């Protein structure tokens, strides 16, 4: 990237209505799309845009996050300089963990101050997209904006929960409201903010001094009249994945070839932790259509309209339709599964019948035996 940019993936108080999928893990590491975790999309987008210093603000249940990110190697972030920094809460008092994200920025201000970088891109982990930040920075400079907010204009309803945004003709943001607000707009905030590092640090300090501790709700909402907050409309595919309905829907969207091609390949590849699974094995009796299948699977049964993560075993006579089966799931002989989400290591015995409905898929927690 021409400009000196650092990235922050902010996991603090992310809206999370994923039920049991986030019982033992944070939203950022919810498995998605056959072999990824939600955070892979923001992380890969940053790396593909040439950002080589990325901080992840870990907050709660971050064991799976540390495990997944490791040294940052799959994202090419294990550098001599810069690289990946996982920053968990630096607090003495357990009460402080519930404070807003600005407090967290403040605690880690040394990290920002030490970095010889001009701009900061702040994102969340649950906006599933493949975006190049370079043109966003360009637009940010062209508009001489203080803050640029990346948004998605979309007439069809967004199933997840996203803030709504109102823009004027020049694209300047005049109003932002939480998802439950009354504002009527088809423009949704992608919770991606670009600003100069100095401005961020200033916002952190002045807001905290006034007893405000939320970056968006306090520092940005309340300054829409004082600061030039510009909107940038992202054209690519977006999945807002913070509710169970949107999780299911956005996984199923990957079965559309055009979404698969766009999200995984354009403008760059999405990287994730390498598992060294062999290619998927289809046996003589397998019947698969309209599905996404990761490496390490062994398929003897029938699979339609479904997503199989790495290492799933579909035994003879089993039928899986419109479902998501996560890593190392085992579906027993002659079992029938439809409209279901099976978390990692779920084992379904033979001749079981499990049915959810599209609006409310059946959900089995990690390691459950059915």
């Amino acid at each position: 990237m021409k400009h000196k940019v650092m990235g922050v993936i902010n996991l603090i108080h992310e809206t999370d209505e994923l039920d049991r999928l986030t019982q033992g893990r944070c939203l950022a590491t919810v498995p998605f799309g056959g072999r990824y975790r939600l955070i892979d999309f923001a992380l890969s987008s940053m790396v593909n845009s040439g950002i080589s210093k990325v901080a992840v603000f870990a907050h709660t249940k971050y064991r799976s996050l540390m495990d997944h990110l490791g040294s940052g190697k799959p994202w090419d972030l294990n550098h001599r300089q810069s690289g990946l920094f996982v920053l968990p809460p630096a607090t003495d008092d357990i009460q402080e963990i519930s404070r807003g994200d600005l407090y967290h920025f403040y605690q880690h201000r040394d990290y920002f101050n030490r970095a010889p970088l001009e701009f900061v891109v702040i994102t969340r982990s649950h906006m599933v997209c493949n975006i190049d930040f370079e043109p966003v920075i360009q637009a940010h400079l062209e508009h001489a904006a203080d803050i640029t907010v990346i948004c998605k204009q979309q007439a069809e309803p967004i199933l997840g929960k996203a803030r709504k945004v109102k823009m004027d003709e020049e694209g300047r943001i005049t109003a932002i409201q939480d998802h439950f607000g009354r504002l009527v707009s088809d423009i949704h905030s992608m919770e991606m903010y670009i600003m100069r590092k100095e401005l961020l640090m200033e916002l952190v300090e002045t807001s905290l001094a006034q007893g405000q501790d939320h970056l968006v709700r306090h520092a940005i909402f309340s300054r829409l009249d004082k600061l030039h907050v510009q909107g940038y409309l992202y054209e690519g595919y977006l999945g807002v994945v913070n509710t169970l309905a949107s999780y299911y829907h956005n996984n199923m969207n990957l079965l559309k070839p055009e979404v698969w091609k766009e999200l995984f390949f354009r403008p760059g590849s999405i990287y994730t932790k390498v598992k060294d699974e062999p290619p998927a094995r289809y046996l003589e009796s397998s019947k698969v259509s309209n599905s996404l299948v990761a490496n390490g699977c062994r398929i003897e049964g029938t699979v339609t309209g479904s997503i199989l993560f790495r290492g799933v075993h579909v035994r003879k006579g089993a039928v899986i339709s419109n479902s998501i089966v996560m890593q190392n799931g085992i579906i027993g002989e002659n079992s029938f599964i439809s409209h279901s989400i099976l978390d990692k290591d779920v084992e379904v015995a033979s001749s079981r019948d499990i049915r959810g409905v599209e609006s409310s898929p059946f959900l089995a927690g990690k390691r459950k035996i059915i």
Partner: protein
Amino acid sequence: MGRKEMIAMLLAGGEGKRLGVLTKDLAKPAVYFGGKYRIIDFTLSNCAHSGIDTVGVLTQYQPLELNRYLGIGSPWGLDRRDGGMAILPPYVKQKGGVWYTGTANAIYQNMSFIERYNPEYVLIISGDHIYKMDYELMLDHHKRCGADVTIAGIEVDWSEASRFGLMHVDDEDRITAFEEKPKTPKSNIASMGVYIFTWSELQKYLIYDEANRSSSHDFGKDLIPSMMRDGKKMFTYPFKGYWKDVGTIDSLWEANMDLLADEPPLTLNDSSWRIYSVSPHQPGHHVGVSAEISASLITEGCMLEGKVHRSVLFYGVNAAKGSTITESVIMPNVRIGEGASIHRAIIGEGAVIQAGVTIGSPDDEAITIVAVDQYVTNDHMLQEVEHS
């Protein structure tokens, strides 16, 4: 630097002439195998699982692609501060430099690399074979026998024995004689080209062999026989399991087909013995509404709308509607047009098979090869694809 008990020297300079166009710009160890691997992944993964953390990879022929692939050895856990992977091409010395003239000469020229680690034992392997083997067990056997050299041996079919270098052994695994590809074999124990030497002995014989002007400086032809003549303690390590030299088109195709059996002789799914490789970072493969896939291996990144039966597909293969692929090996990023039909073929990386093209036929046993980046049209005009 601490002393290493055993380091590995991996001979990866093979031209693989018998693989024809598949090794035109590629050393044989870098040839693709099994849907996501290259041949060399198997020996490197063996090292990783056998606790060997220092591997010298000797390259010579067409090393560019291989070097790029190996990098600093991270996928095999060989990016170490102390030891790790080192790529050892021939180099210019004070008194001029020469190409590696034989397998023994290649090691001779890199004796200073071995001396740095001052190992007790040296494992010599090649990057040309597909097998899973714990070299640590072989080392235990070597020590137990008090051997100067141990050569891994595998029982082969008597009908095929004359294709191999054979060893005669006694009841205690001691090697009593060698036969190199005899017309009428008297033993069916083939040398796998996997050697463990006690370093002090190997060092002596490398120097001795180098000084011998009539030697071709080859382990099998020169160095091992001269140890035999001197009555050195030579043992075989009996290996049971899958082992295949994929040096010909037929054997490469066969070894790929071997993977498709319901219970394949070589399992890739063993979680305690994973085969490591460089990840191409591709999403799960997409099986379209009209696709039919059976008895096949399919890798991530493929987009399939056609019929696939008894085939191995590498990553990024695109097969359009109405296309048929049977008994074939399709290497990475091949594009197959609508209605095209491919039978008993190996299609090189990046090739484009235009709509309606027919390659191979069910009545013909022969295996068709399409070279890397070839553009195959209906009148079989072959031309290289231009990369954009």
